[in-house]
């Protein structure tokens, strides 16, 4: 419940205040340079801060006619206002050791004047100040809701600073930068709000008053002001400002403004007449000013500058995430009402992406003349004619229901169902999360315990929205219903490119062959990307993992007896042309930042690895290839590419396992277990393990890796080190 409120308010706040925040941020960037440029001016005198006030006065007295005030500014420059011997009144920076003028007061550059004005009042005077103060408050709220969102997402306060799982770069950096910029951001906004409140006199006034010193000595001692004990003991670092007595009248006194109090000092005997301590409000104002503007410290000014840049990034990444979410929200227009449909599809999704899959199934069923109704889990109701229920759901956070499935559990328990429904549940998620598809497991268990629901297929979990895995499930499901569904990937317009066949191997004993294609136009892709092919006269997409050899696409294909696409590809000859698309698959690109990479595959799953081990840019990374096939003969066709990599020292080890050889009955996971030293070392050294091939193989391999990790390293397998592309 709460998560959605926080996200909603985080977004609403951002939208409503974005233009003003943008203005304030851009001007803030400009203004951050002001304290820096002031600090770099050469008016700071070394050791001036430890120089005594009385010496400073003495020096000034001998140099000038009369002194009006001495000030130590935020940059630690000493400013004196004096009458020069020519009778002129001047204010300038001095060197306290010599009392000589060392420079005129810094004049605020026009650009800073302009930016300051825009920053604090948008040139709208009080109205503008009120707006900016309010916006600052909104930004504070955003920072707070942001913290809550991070805590929620990371699964508790304790994990606030633990590793973030990368799903998209916008999201990833929004959180990463959010964690670091958080504290300065909160400081900026609180001080900003404080300064605005001060401008509108909405703060309690400082109640401290001057308290007279009762023990004023009566003796009319007359001392030279440079002999006052007080002035001797005070250094320039202690003072903010010293105002000299206005006239020679005994009623006129020195006003010493120190860091935390104000003193009135008799001008003839140096006694403190009265003093006033700064109250909380005064101190808070002065700190707000320093913290908000960065006056006097370059480092803080730079922190402020970086924070401004991070706000710009938050705006950009935040809005692009929102737009992505909008795009994913596919609207489905139901042809049948809930009580008329035979098939019910219910969707639970946080970001809307799961709806795409529901739509694919919906279209396929409608094409077969079936009556279907699609809705969100939250709208669960009674279904008069329904016989089949399908639930597609993602998981939020640590096994929680996604936004539109929050009431499902309660509804299932309270709403009576007339018919018995056959159900099956598909969970969408990422193996990178500990609680992979956890909510789908909960839904599955919930339905299982319900009298009116009969399990049809067991729960299927789909990693990283793999369309191949989804298609696999659909085939399985439609068979169980006695249907023959053709599903289509929800595609935007197809940008098919033309490829030329360069080379095609003969079919081997495993019914597999290699085919090398050359793009006819400039195409960017990497090993691990997918090639999408629509064979003639079909609307069904087939996807193959690409190995990039030079600039060509290498595919390894298993021919199925009735496979339309594999047969179509098998009959191609050299120089034949075909249309295909390249689908980026960043999740399975070669990890260039790892030191060691283990590649595990079976059958035709070797294709992307053939490209990776022959890429000249991966020189410094050690690679080990595990491959499992039926017989030695089935390996022959790949050996050319592997020998080449070996010869060029791109491959550090190859481990083959044959499951159907006379003297060997070994699977790839057996080879892993035999080389557990290597595997545990790679895991320990933050290497990456890539798996490509069948799902059965993947499950076996993951189990073996888990065993190695827990027995050798005493830690559970870290899924962030695993990349998979399995079907």
């Amino acid at each position, binding site marked *: 419940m709460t998560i959605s409120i926080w996200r909603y308010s985080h977004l609403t706040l951002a939208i409503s205040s974005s233009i003003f925040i943008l203005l304030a941020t851009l001007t803030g960037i400009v203004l951050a340079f002001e304290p820096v440029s002031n600090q770099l001016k050469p008016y700071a005198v070394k050791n001036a801060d430890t120089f005594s006030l009385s010496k400073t006065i003495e020096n000034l007295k001998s140099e000038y006619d009369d002194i009006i005030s001495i000030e130590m500014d935020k940059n630690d420059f000493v400013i004196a206002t004096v009458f020069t011997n020519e009778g002129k009144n001047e204010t300038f920076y001095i060197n306290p050791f010599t009392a000589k003028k060392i420079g005129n007061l810094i004049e605020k550059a026009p650009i800073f004047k302009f930016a300051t004005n825009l920053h604090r009042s948008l040139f709208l005077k009080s109205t503008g100040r009120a707006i900016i103060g309010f916006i600052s408050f909104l930004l504070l709220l955003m920072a707070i809701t942001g913290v809550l969102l991070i805590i929620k997402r990371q699964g508790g306060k304790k994990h606030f600073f633990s590793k973030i799982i990368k799903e998209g770069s916008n999201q990833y950096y929004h959180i990463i930068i959010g964690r670091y910029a958080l504290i300065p951001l909160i400081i900026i906004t609180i001080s900003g709000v404080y300064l605005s409140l001060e*401008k509108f006199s909405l703060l309690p*006034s400082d109640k401290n008053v001057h308290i007279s010193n009762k023990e004023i000595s009566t003796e009319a001692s007359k001392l030279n002001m440079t002999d006052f004990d007080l002035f001797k003991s005070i250094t320039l670092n202690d003072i903010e400002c010293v105002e000299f007595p206005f*006239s020679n009248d005994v009623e006129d006194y020195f006003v010493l403004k120190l860091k935390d109090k104000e003193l009135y000092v008799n001008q003839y005997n140096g006694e403190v007449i009265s003093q006033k301590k700064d109250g909380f409000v005064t101190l808070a104002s002065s700190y707000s000013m320093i913290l908000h503007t960065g006056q006097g410290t370059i480092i803080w000014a730079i922190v402020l500058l970086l924070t401004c840049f991070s706000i710009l990034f938050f705006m950009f990444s935040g809005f692009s995430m929102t737009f992505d979410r909008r795009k994913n929200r596919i609207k489905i227009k139901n042809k049948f009402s809930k009580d008329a449909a035979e098939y019910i599809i219910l969707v639970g999704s946080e970001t809307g992406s799961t709806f795409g899959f529901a739509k694919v199934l919906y279209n396929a069923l409608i094409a077969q003349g079936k009556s279907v109704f699609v809705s969100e889990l939250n709208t669960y109701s009674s279904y008069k004619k329904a016989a089949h229920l399908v639930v597609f759901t993602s998981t939020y956070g640590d096994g929680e229901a996604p936004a539109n499935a929050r009431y499902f559990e309660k509804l299932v328990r309270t709403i009576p169902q007339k018919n018995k429904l056959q159900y099956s549940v598909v969970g969408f998620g990422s193996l990178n999360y500990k609680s992979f598809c956890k909510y789908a497991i909960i839904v599955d268990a919930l339905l299982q315990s319900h009298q009116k629901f009969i399990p049809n297929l067991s729960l299927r979990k789909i990693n990283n929205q793999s369309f191949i895995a989804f298609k696999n499930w659909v085939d399985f499901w439609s068979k169980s219903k006695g249907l023959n569904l053709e599903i289509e990937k929800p595609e935007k317009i197809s940008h098919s490119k033309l490829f030329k066949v360069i080379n095609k191997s003969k079919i081997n004993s495993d019914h597999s062959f290699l085919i090398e294609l050359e793009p006819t136009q400039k195409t960017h892709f990497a090993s691990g990307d997918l090639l999408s092919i629509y064979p003639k006269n079909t609307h069904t997409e087939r996807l193959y993992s690409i190995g990039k050899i030079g600039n060509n696409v290498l595919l390894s294909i298993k021919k199925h007896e009735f496979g339309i696409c594999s047969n179509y590809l098998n009959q191609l000859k050299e120089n034949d042309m075909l249309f295909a698309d390249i689908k980026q698959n960043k999740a399975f690109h070669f990890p260039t930042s790892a030191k060691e990479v283990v590649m595990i595959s079976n059958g035709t799953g070797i294709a992307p690895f053939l490209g990776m081990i022959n890429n000249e840019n991966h020189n410094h990374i050690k690679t080990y290839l595990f491959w499992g096939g039926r017989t030695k003969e089935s390996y022959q066709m790949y050996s050319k590419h592997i020998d080449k990599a070996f010869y060029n020292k791109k491959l550090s080890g190859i481990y083959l396992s044959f499951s159907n050889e006379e003297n060997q009955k070994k699977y790839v996971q057996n080879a892993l277990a035999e080389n557990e030293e290597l595997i545990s070392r790679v895991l320990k050294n933050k290497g990456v393990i890539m798996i490509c091939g069948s799902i059965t193989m993947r499950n076996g391999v993951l189990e073996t890796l888990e065993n190695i990790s827990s027995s050798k390293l005493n830690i559970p397998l870290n899924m962030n080190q695993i990349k998979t592309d399995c079907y």
Partner: protein
Amino acid sequence: MKHTLVFKTLPILVITLFVFFGFKNKVNTTSYKCMIQMTNYTGEGAYIAISLLNPDGTYEKTLYIQGDDDEWYSDITEWWKFHGKIRADIDAITGATISGGGRTISVIQIDDDKIDVGYKIRFESAVEDQEYYKDDVEFELTSESVKSKVDGNGFIRYVRIIPQ
């Protein structure tokens, strides 16, 4: 005959003397220390314009401005009618605003020939979103008044002034 000569020469003599002294006494100016003590009002720092008024009561010159952000100058209404038109360079005679309860010492320059001839000095004060006082402090410049203390009617508690 002699009389006519006197009548003819006297004006010439007077004019000559006038011109002569006029050039020689290139009008002396005196610096005055001027302290403004504010009342304990709450709110923003006050903007204060110190101006010289001629015997007719019209503005002649800006002597000092407390407040260095010209965004707010138009709040000092009467003075702005004068200064807003000519926009004389006042950079050298501006200081920071003064907050409630505060005091500030500034130095102003007044030509000696403005003393004891009916010229006046005026302190106007304005605080953001609060009142504006056209004559918070206003008094005639005499050799007595330029070393005195004058109470204010608005944000200013009193003004003290002494020749330097």
